[in-house]
């Protein structure tokens, strides 16, 4: 009976678990992948996961502040993507590959 109600009554916890799964996938992408662009895409995944939990909290606590924060997160994600891609393009121009190990050549 407990399992069925868990399946049928979708509440805050369901959205939180969805967000956590998405965040885990994103973080494992950041830790495991070697391609810089895929690493950045995994970061976008993590930001989206956090956005889901913000919006879910905003709905279930009747507080619109959560949605405002999502706005800010989206703006910062767009800015981060722009700068990150600019760096990646300059790395590609230099080494003809976008593997993460080329980052150590950036110093100096």
């Amino acid at each position, binding site marked *: 009976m407990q399992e069925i109600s868990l399946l049928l009554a979708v509440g805050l916890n369901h959205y939180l678990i969805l967000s956590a799964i998405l965040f*885990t996938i994103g973080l494992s992408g950041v830790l495991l992948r070697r391609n810089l662009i895929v690493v950045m895409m995994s970061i976008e995944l993590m930001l989206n996961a956090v956005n889901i939990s913000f919006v879910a909290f905003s709905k279930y606590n009747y507080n619109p502040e959560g949605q405002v924060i999502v706005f800010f997160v989206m703006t910062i994600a767009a800015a981060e993507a722009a700068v990150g891609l600019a760096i990646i393009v300059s790395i590609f121009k230099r080494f003809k590959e976008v593997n993460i190990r080329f980052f150590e050549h950036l110093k100096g």
Partner: protein
Amino acid sequence: MSMDTVLFWFLSLIVIVPALAVVLLSNPVYSALSLVMTMVGVAAVFATLNAYFLAGVQLIVYTGAVMVLFVMVLMLFDLKHDLQTFSRGKVSGFLKIAGVGVMAGLLVGAISLATKKPSLIVEGSPLANELAAAAASGADNTKILAENLFLRNMLGFEILGVLLLVIAVGTVALSRSKGGTHARD
């Protein structure tokens, strides 16, 4: 089984399967296109949470601009397959995933223990009625959001504007310094 429930399970499938594909596929172009699918799914999840305006903004900003940049850059590079998709060390890799999973699980457990109240809404209670009223007046949602953004969070909004300007200048400077996509030298 109500429509919302079916929708939630369907959408969570649409969000999670492409998200896995982003990490697991070795062709970065497929990863990027899967990420677009995830973004669309997340927008739909926002819509089920009555954040209609945010859902639209998610579509415009993420799928319309950010991901287009990613896909364009990938296609310019024309990388077929990554020579070394994942980092070395199978054991450490599994340890990393397991560590992250445990952390996320603990986080969700802690949050759901701390916020028991909203998930215990009973059908027909005053709280449920209020929720239904809020869901029915979805159009007012945007107005409330705007008032919150422009009256209570004005400083943050202005700072974001300045940040975006700095980012725009910085990106142009970065891509021009040592030859961007249109190098002359």
